[in-house]
């Protein structure tokens, strides 16, 4: 059977190779398995011209995504806007700032549609009929929607206390939604046990090697949209730390294939202070992290035992990046700042990214003469609960010009004629 441009699954720790099946852990050292590609063959076909001639979706880089044939799930996902954020740049004090806006990713308004379209396309190739996930919300939404569109049955497992928007956004697609009385780490533990017992495609458990690769497409798009360049700085929110490592990999792959020039890049990680195992390790100069019990409004980042934490720390060290974390109030300020300067309403994770970027610029980790990309991974309409009491309220008047002018006279004395 054709394997496309994939060669094998390979242990990240010991390098042992495995068949391209639904498996995610090395039998010898529990190391995560990653997809190995045939870069020599890819180099012959994946050119800037070939990419530019293809439809504007994440699948224009399909040779570097882990499926054997053509995508069958989520063909329209990706190619979200890269917005030049001049007003925010001015406020934060940096020369050039860009927002990679996955708050408007299709179909479920988060970057998770990227990983899910890969995981489900591969699940279909491997013959699965039921797909599942452990989720902090966005992943559940994406699995539910994409499974519905592909005619697959879906089981999604979420912590019981998620934002209502994220729960409804899974239920509406007809998925089997199971709330677990516990936080995400406990949900994931249960799912690891369920995945060991039932023959389902758990996108972030046994399908994880394929799933995680989907994140690279965010980095591929950033480079193409910047005119085939790598930004000096990239700020990435961290839950498990996987996205950060995959953005780095996307820069490595494009430069290895000659699609971009390998100018130096720094990758910085953003966390919430209420769940900061990776950023606190980085700030303490450690190569390993200590697990924490999450307590933050950034629920999509609330993973206390991050699987890729070790590798995220390694990437930040190798690239000269840094990591910071922000409090719940700073997260809300970050959301407001992005909304008021650029007209982009991000979820709490976006507030984390903006708040951390602000700190990194103030501290000099991102210098004022450089270019930076902020990765915004989800939409603010899904986490209204976090900001509903912090944006003020609309003012009520009768349908009367006199009442409106009274209001306006209060806002702008002198504008209203007596």
């Amino acid at each position, binding site marked *: 059977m054709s394997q496309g441009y994939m060669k094998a699954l390979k242990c990240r*720790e010991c390098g042992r190779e495995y068949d391209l099946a639904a498996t*995610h*852990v*090395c*039998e*010898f*050292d*529990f*190391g*995560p398995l990653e997809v190995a590609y045939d870069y020599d063959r890819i180099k012959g076909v994946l050119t800037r011209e070939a990419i530019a001639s293809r439809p504007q979706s994440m699948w224009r880089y399909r040779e570097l995504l882990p499926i054997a044939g053509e995508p069958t799930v989520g063909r329209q996902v990706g190619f979200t806007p890269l917005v030049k954020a001049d007003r925010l740049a001015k406020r934060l004090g940096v020369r050039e700032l860009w927002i990679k806006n996955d708050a408007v990713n299709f179909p479920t308004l988060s970057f998770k549609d990227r990983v899910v379209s890969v995981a489900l396309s591969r699940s279909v190739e491997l013959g699965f009929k039921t797909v599942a*996930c*452990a*989720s*902090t*919300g*966005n*992943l*559940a939404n994406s699995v539910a929607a994409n499974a519905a569109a592909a005619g697959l049955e879906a089981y999604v497992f979420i912590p019981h206390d998620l934002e209502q928007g994220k729960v409804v956004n899974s239920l509406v697609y007809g998925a089997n939604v199971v709330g677990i009385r516990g936080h*995400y*780490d*406990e*949900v*994931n*533990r249960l799912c*690891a*046990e369920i995945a*060991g017992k039932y023959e389902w495609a758990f996108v*972030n*458990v046994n399908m*994880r090697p394929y*799933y*995680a690769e989907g994140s690279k497409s965010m980095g591929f798009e950033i480079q193409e949209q910047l005119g085939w360049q790598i930004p000096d700085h990239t700020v990435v929110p961290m*839950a*498990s*730390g*996987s*996205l950060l490592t995959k953005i780095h990999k996307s820069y490595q792959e494009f430069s290895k294939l000659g699609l971009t020039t390998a100018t130096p890049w720094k990758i910085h990680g953003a966390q919430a202070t209420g769940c900061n195992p990776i950023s606190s390790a980085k700030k303490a100069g450690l190569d*390993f992290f*200590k*697990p924490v*019990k999450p307590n933050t409004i950034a629920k999509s980042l609330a*993973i206390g*035992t*991050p*699987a*890729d934490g*070790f590798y995220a720390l390694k990437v930040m060290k190798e690239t000269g990046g840094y990591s910071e974390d922000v409090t719940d109030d700073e997260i809300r300020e970050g959301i407001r700042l992005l909304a008021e300067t650029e007209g982009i309403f991000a979820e709490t994770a976006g507030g984390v990214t903006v708040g951390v970027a602000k700190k990194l610029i103030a501290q000099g980790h991102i210098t004022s003469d450089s270019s930076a990309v902020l990765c915004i991974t989800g939409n603010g309409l899904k986490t209204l609960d976090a900001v509903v009491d912090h944006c003020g309220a609309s003012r009520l008047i009768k349908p009367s010009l006199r009442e409106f002018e009274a209001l306006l006279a209060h806002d702008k004395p002198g504008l209203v004629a007596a």
Partner: protein
Amino acid sequence: MSVRILIPPTLRKLCGGEEIIRVRPGTVREAIGQLNSQFNGIRDRLCDQRGQVRGSVLVYVNDEEIRFLDNQNTRLKAGDEVSLIPAFAGG
């Protein structure tokens, strides 16, 4: 009564296909030692060369991961359940 160790799919081949192995009460370190004497090599799968549990493995005693308890010195009493889980991906 003994301590139950739930064996993840990744390690079942090494454990003769067993899903649950019973060991005597003691510490987590002693439990891993007992496992290793029954199924030679399992310690090296779970622990690195310094004998520390690998970063890619989570060891739960009932509902708590051992890094929140006393690591490998965590006491196991009769009726306790130990789960060995690969670290989690994002969601």
